[in-house]
């Protein structure tokens, strides 16, 4: 690893930390946005349920969150609790700390996102290459049409449409991750197959938008590369078309695709959130929706914060990846 690369990474890291800091500010602003502080709402809700909240508890919560203090102090309490104690606040909807809610749901959510991500790249890159190499063929037109439709249809519509189709064809809407009765069954081949069956629609829906846009990018990049002079030079020297295509063109065309990992994450998180709500999946998206409908802002805000941080991390990784793949990128960046 050379010095150039290290400098590049360090500078990117510094901007990343600054961005995360700004993001945390925005998130805290959103958390405090609903009128009246959450404690008043909480006390109101408890009173509605017929439970009195002891004055000591109120005083303690007030002190803990610094509610009678200015915005900046409240912000400091919130962020320092997260950074030093891993405490994201308290969810009044589920009556437990936000941290435990997140712990309970983060694994399925991340698995779903990751599987979708792999699926997205595995499908879109080959299709993009195919479309570029066979430009204006029937296959290219077909994929272009699918791509346009996939980018245009909102996620939740796609979810409902697929549920509808699945119901018409098989009589089952494939809601949830398991069929009724399977959820608590011991792990077996049958349960695994059931899970796989139920994952098809979510993965399709979450991945579709991203797959389509990646497919378009890959196609465009590949077309650019194929028209360049080095391709003709290599042809003139007698290299086989296939060798040029896969050894040089694909490698060069991959760069912008690699740099889009961060933004792909944004798409995928959006997708997972909505699909979880529509298809009733046990993931963070559904919890966030319920929390928002109830203005349980600590829970919703924390999840928003985590998604944004993961996106920034994804962008950071893809920047490093690009710098590693393409030396031009890092020298241009360092030059300014």
């Amino acid at each position, binding site marked *: 690893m050379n010095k150039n690369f290290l400098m590049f990474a360090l500078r990117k890291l510094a*901007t990343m930390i*600054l*961005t995360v800091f*700004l*993001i945390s500010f*925005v998130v805290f602003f*959103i958390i405090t*946005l*609903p*009128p009246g502080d959450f404690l008043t709402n909480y006390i109101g809700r408890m009173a509605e349920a017929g439970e009195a909240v002891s004055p000591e508890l109120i005083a303690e919560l007030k002190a803990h969150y610094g509610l009678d203090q200015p915005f900046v102090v409240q912000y400091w309490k919130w962020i320092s609790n997260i950074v030093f104690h891993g405490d994201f606040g308290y969810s009044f909807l589920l009556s437990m700390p936000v941290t435990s809610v997140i712990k309970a749901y983060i694994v399925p959510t991340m698995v779903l996102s990751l599987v979708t991500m792999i699926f997205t790249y595995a499908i879109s890159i080959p299709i993009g290459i195919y479309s570029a190499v066979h430009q204006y063929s029937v296959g290219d037109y077909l994929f272009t049409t699918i791509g*346009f*439709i996939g*980018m*245009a*249809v*909102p*996620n*939740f*519509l796609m979810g*409902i*449409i697929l*549920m*509808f189709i699945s*119901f018409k064809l098989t009589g089952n*809407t494939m*809601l949830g991750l398991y069929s009724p009765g399977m959820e608590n069954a011991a792990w077996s081949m049958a349960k695994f197959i059931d899970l796989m069956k139920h994952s098809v629609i979510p993965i399709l829906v979450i991945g579709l938008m991203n797959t389509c846009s990646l497919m378009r990018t890959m196609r465009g990049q590949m077309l650019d590369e194929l*028209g360049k002079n080095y391709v*003709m030079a290599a042809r003139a020297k007698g290299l086989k078309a296939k060798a040029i295509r896969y050894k040089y063109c694909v490698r060069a065309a991959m760069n912008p695709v690699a740099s889009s990992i961060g*933004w792909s994450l*944004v*798409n995928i*998180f*959006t997708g997972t*959130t*909505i699909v979880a*709500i*529509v298809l009733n999946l046990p993931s963070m*998206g559904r919890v*966030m*929706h319920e929390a*928002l*409908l109830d*203005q349980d*802002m600590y829970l*919703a*805000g924390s*999840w*928003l914060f985590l*998604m*944004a941080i993961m*996106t*920034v991390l994804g*962008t950071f990784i893809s920047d490093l990846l690009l710098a590693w793949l393409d030396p031009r990128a890092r020298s241009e960046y360092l030059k300014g």
Partner: protein
Amino acid sequence: MALFKKKNKERDDSYYYASQWQLMYQKFRKHKLAMASAVLLIVFYTIAIFGNFVAPQGTEQFSGEYVNCGPTPIHFFHEGEWEGPFVYGLKRDRDPVTYMNIFVEDTEKICHIDFFAEGDKGGEYKILGLIPCNIHLFQAEGDGQVFLFGTDGMGRDLFSRVVLGAQISLFIPVVGMILTVALGLLMGSLAGYFGGWVDNVIQRLIEVVRSFPNVPLWMALSAALPATLKPAQVFMLMTIILSLISWPNLARTVRSQFFSIKKEDFIMAARISGAPASAIVLRHMIPSFLSYIIVNMTLTIPSLIVGETTLSFLGLGLRSPATSWGVLLQETNKLETIMFYGWKLIPMIFVFLAVLAFNFLGDGLRDAADPYK
């Protein structure tokens, strides 16, 4: 390969005399899909503007009698004889399998459809919000009912609701787009013109906004709206929320355009002749990349349509009695809708068409934006 392709077509003089905008229009007309989309969108917007006339029912009307009634087919022949457009009367029945209430046609009773009918069935409205009027495009005579798209769970005519919902679903995005463009232009030109620390700050801001997944951030912001707001206020705030999140794309385009144009001679000339910064930006720089801005504007609208629909669908945007396509789709997220009331999915087709049409239009405009290519 491309080297030997003959590119120069024979062109008559009109090509060389044509202005940039004329060339763009000529090129745009060649994009068939974009032309078709433009026509479709004009039809959609015209119908939305005259929605109260086109819709047989007003927003607040419902008939408890006809709950969850399927679309009523329009017939022309009765027992082999020409009758003109008419519907049969409806009578209540029970599904032999599921025992659910259904409606079947009563082939004894014929109700002709009157066009430009003046009637109390549809209720009064004001043309363009000014002139009171009571004429509707079509209506069934007597106690007949025309439900082109069926009815919803409260017995409201779905066709009317789609038409009236279009008024909100198609116009929120336009207002939002105007705000987005204003914000994007302002931020982009500040960053691009001044560069330096201003640029740095705005770049960070763009990065922060873009790091949030769109829809969840929209959701969080609209959830923070107090539940006591009036529909008009929710409408306003939703528009602001939608555009607060979608400006960075345009700002980035504008910024990079600024950087490439800034060093051109004509800008230098303007600066030397003492033109103030605002004049240079507004008179010289923005017009030179106006076409890109127009493309970006067209492509912003579909994402805002999706935003509004998604939020209302999730119960975080507009709420009944306000009517928008997203509000209509709320009913589709129930199992029984998918299983028994398939027609309630019809509003989806319109969301789909509108979004697709705007995308194709934007695509056509993007091709046309560079007519010399």
